[in-house]
C-alpha cells in the first residue's frame, strides 16, 4: 500500500495548523460564520441536525490497522464511541464539538489521514473496488491509479472551485463493483493486445437527475490518464453551469452539450494540455507502483478450513455469503457485515473497529477496505484462517452472514442526522432487516438501497428495490423504484407510483417480495432477474393492489 512521503505529511500538518487557527478565530469572534463556513467545509466539518459532523477521507477505501485503531480512538475520545462508514468509502463522525475538530484532524494526520476535499465543489475521494488487488477478474490493480489521481487532485489549484462536486471511481475488474457509471468520471482498466488501457465513462450520477455515464474514450493509454482527466475537468470547469446548483454537475453539461461535442472539446483540451505533462506524473506513478505491491501470500494447511466447512453449517453459510474467491487459490477476501439485523447500516463501534484492525494485523496482511456498500473487507486472508476469523467476528457481533441479502442495505444517515434529508432512512433499514431476517435466505440476492432525500446518497436509483424518503405535506413518504442495478449492466430503477407512508411501507414491500417469490422461475433467479424478464408491471400491480381493492 502507498505510504505518505514527507511532503504529504508536511502538507497535511500545514492544513491542520491553518484550520486550528481558523477555529480559534471563529471562537474569538474574528471570523463570522459566513467567513468560517467555507473554511470548515474544506476540512470536512459539516453542521448537521444535532451536531457537527466530520467526514474523513479514506483514500480508495484502504486502511491500515493503525489507521483503523486511530479512528476507534477518535470515536472514543471525541465522539460517541462509533463511526459511520459511508457509500463513498469514507467514515463520518456524527458528534464532534467544533473546538475538538483541530485535535481530531491532528490525530488523523498522525496516521497519514485527513478530511481535505470531503466537501465542497472539488474532486472528492476517489473510490474503487473493495477487492482491488485480490479479485480474480482483475486486469490490473486500480489503487496505484487511484493514488495518482488522489495526489494530482489534492489541492489542485484549478479545480478547487468547480461548478459542483466531482466524483471519480475506478475499477480494474471485469465486474464493476465500484459503480463507475454512476460517477462524474468512471474509469475501467482493460487489457487490449497486452496493453493496460482505460475505458473512460463520463456524466454519470444519481441525485435528482439520475444518469448512467456514457463512454467518452474506449482505449485511453494509461500514461495519458492525468492529462486526459485534466482535459475533462478543464472543459467542465468552463462549460459547467454555475447559474443553477441543480444543473451544475457534469452529467448535465454532457447531456446538454451531447457526448460527441463534449468529446471534441475534451480532445482539443487534451492536445493543448498533453505537452505540459513531461513525465513527472509517470515518475510518480512508478514510485507508487513500486510500493503498492501484492503481499507475499503464505501457503498454509487448509485442513482446518475444509473440516469447518463440513462440520459447521453456520460457518459454511457465512463463507457462502461473506467470502469471495481470491486471485491466489488458497486465499479469500472476507466481507465483514456492518449490517447486523436491526443495527444502523455502516456503523461500527470503536471496539468493533479494534477487532477488525486486530484481525487485519494478524490474518490479513495489514489491509482493510471500506466497501461502498458500507461493509469492511479483509482483502487477503488465507482460507486456513477463516474459521478463526469467523469465530472472533462472532464474538463481537460482526459475523452476520448476509452479504447481498435483503438486510445488506445501503442507507444514508437520513433525517436522523442529515440537515438535507427529507425523511428518515435508518429506521426503515432497521425495520426491513428485522422483518425479513428469517426469510432472507429464501428470498436470495436482493439489494435494497435507501435514500433520505433526492440527493440519493443511499444510491436508491440503482437498488434492485430503491426507497426514497420524501416530505409529502409534512408527513414522511417513501417512493419505491425497482429494477435498478449498479454493476456492468448499470440501470436506473423505475419509479412505481405514489409513495407510501411509514405504516404502509412494510406491507407494500411484503407484497412486492411475495410477488417475486411467486413469479421467479426457481430460487436461482434473483429478484432483479425476474424484474428484467417480466418487466415491472406485475410488481407495480402487487404494490398497488391495495389501491385497486379500495
Amino acid at each position, binding site marked *: 500500500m502507498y505510504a505518505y512521503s514527507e511532503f504529504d505529511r508536511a502538507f497535511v500538518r500545514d492544513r491542520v495548523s491553518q484550520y486550528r487557527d481558523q477555529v480559534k478565530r471563529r471562537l474569538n469572534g474574528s471570523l*463570522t*460564520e459566513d467567513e468560517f463556513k467555507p473554511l470548515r467545509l474544506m476540512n470536512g466539518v459539516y453542521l448537521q441536525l*444535532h451536531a457537527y459532523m466530520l467526514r474523513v477521507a479514506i483514500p480508495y477505501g484502504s486502511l491500515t490497522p493503525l489507521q483503523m485503531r486511530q479512528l476507534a480512538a477518535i470515536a472514543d475520545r471525541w465522539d460517541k464511541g462509533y463511526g459511520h462508514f459511508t457509500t463513498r468509502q469514507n467514515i463520518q463522525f456524527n458528534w464532534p464539538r467544533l*473546538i475538538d475538530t483541530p485535535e481530531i484532524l491532528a490525530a488523523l494526520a498522525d496516521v497519514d489521514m485527513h478530511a481535505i476535499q470531503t466537501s465542497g465543489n472539488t474532486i472528492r475521494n476517489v473510490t474503487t473496488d473493495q477487492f482491488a488487488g485480490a479479485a480474480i477478474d482483475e486486469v490490473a490493480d486500480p489503487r496505484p491509479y487511484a493514488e495518482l489521481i488522489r495526489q494530482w487532485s489534492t489541492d489542485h489549484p484549478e479545480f478547487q472551485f468547480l461548478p459542483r462536486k466531482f466524483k471519480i471511481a475506478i475499477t480494474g475488474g471485469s465486474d464493476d463493483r465500484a459503480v463507475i457509471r454512476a460517477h462524474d468520471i468512471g474509469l475501467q482498466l482493460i487489457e487490449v493486445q497486452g496493453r493496460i488501457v482505460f475505458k473512460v465513462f463520463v456524466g454519470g450520477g444519481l441525485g435528482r437527475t439520475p444518469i448512467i455515464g456514457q463512454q467518452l474514450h474506449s482505449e485511453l493509454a494509461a500514461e495519458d490518464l492525468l492529462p486526459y482527466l485534466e482535459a475533462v475537468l478543464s472543459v467542465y470547469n468552463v462549460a459547467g453551469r454555475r447559474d443553477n446548483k441543480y444543473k451544475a454537475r457534469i452529467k448535465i453539461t454532457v447531456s446538454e452539450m451531447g457526448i460527441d461535442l463534449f468529446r471534441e472539446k475534451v480532445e482539443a483540451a487534451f492536445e493543448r494540455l498533453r505537452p505540459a505533462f513531461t513525465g513527472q506524473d509517470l515518475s510518480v506513478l512508478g514510485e507508487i507502483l513500486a510500493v503498492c505491491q501484492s503481499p507475499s501470500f503464505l501457503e498454509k494447511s487448509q485442513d482446518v478450513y475444509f473440516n469447518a466447512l463440513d462440520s459447521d453449517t453456520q460457518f459454511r453459510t457465512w463463507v457462502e455469503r461473506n467470502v469471495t474467491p481470491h486471485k491466489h487459490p488458497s486465499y479469500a477476501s472476507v466481507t465483514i457485515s456492518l449490517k447486523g439485523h436491526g443495527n*444502523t447500516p455502516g456503523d461500527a463501534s470503536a471496539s468493533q473497529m479494534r477487532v477488525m484492525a486486530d484481525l487485519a494485523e494478524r490474518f490479513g496482511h495489514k489491509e482493510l477496505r471500506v466497501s461502498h456498500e458500507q461493509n469492511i473487507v479483509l482483502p487477503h486472508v488465507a482460507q486456513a484462517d477463516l474459521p478463526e476469523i469467523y469465530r472472533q467476528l462472532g464474538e463481537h457481533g460482526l459475523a452476520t452472514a448476509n452479504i447481498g441479502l435483503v438486510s445488506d442495505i445501503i442507507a444514508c444517515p437520513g433525517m436522523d*442526522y442529515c440537515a438535507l434529508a427529507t425523511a428518515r432512512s435508518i429506521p426503515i433499514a432497521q425495520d426491513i432487516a428485522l422483518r425479513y431476517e428469517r426469510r432472507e435466505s429464501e428470498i436470495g440476492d436482493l439489494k435494497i438501497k435507501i435514500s433520505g432525500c433526492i440527493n440519493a446518497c443511499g444510491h436508491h436509483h440503482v437498488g434492485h428495490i430503491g426507497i426514497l424518503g420524501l416530505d409529502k405535506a409534512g408527513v414522511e413518504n417513501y417512493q419505491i423504484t425497482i429494477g435498478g442495478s449498479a454493476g456492468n449492466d448499470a440501470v436506473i430503477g423505475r419509479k412505481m407510483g405514489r409513495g407510501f407512508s411509514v405504516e404502509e411501507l412494510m406491507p407494500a414491500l411484503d407484497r412486492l417480495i411475495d410477488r417475486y417469490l411467486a413469479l421467479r422461475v426457481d430460487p436461482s433467479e434473483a429478484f432483479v432477474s425476474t424484474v428484467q424478464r417480466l418487466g415491472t408491471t406485475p410488481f407495480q400491480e402487487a404494490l398497488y393492489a391495495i389501491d385497486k381493492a379500495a
Partner: protein
Amino acid sequence: MAAIKLPVVITANDLLSGEAVYWHPSGIWSSDLTGSKVFESLEQAQASIQGVVSDAEVIGAYLAEVLEEGNRLVSRHYREGFRARGPSNYCHGKQECLREKAAV
C-alpha cells in the same frame, strides 16, 4: 415557500456543539424546546430574531413552527421534531440528556 404558521419559536444550532437550541424568555439559548419563548406574531418573532441572535453563540437561527398542547410545546413538522428529540437509532444527543434526567 409556504407561509409560516403561528405560533413559532426561535431556533438555531449552538456554535460550540452544533446542538439544536431554542431561545428562552430568560434570555438564554437552551437545548430544550419546552420553555421556549413562543411568538404569536410573525413581525415580533422576526424582529426578535434580529435582536437576540449573536454570531458568537449560535449558527443559522430561524423560526420554527410549534403547537401548544396543554403545557407542552411540540414541533409542528417532523423535521423539527427530530431536532428537538435527537436521533431515533441511538440514545444520543438530546435522547441521552433525557435518559440522564429520567435516571436522576
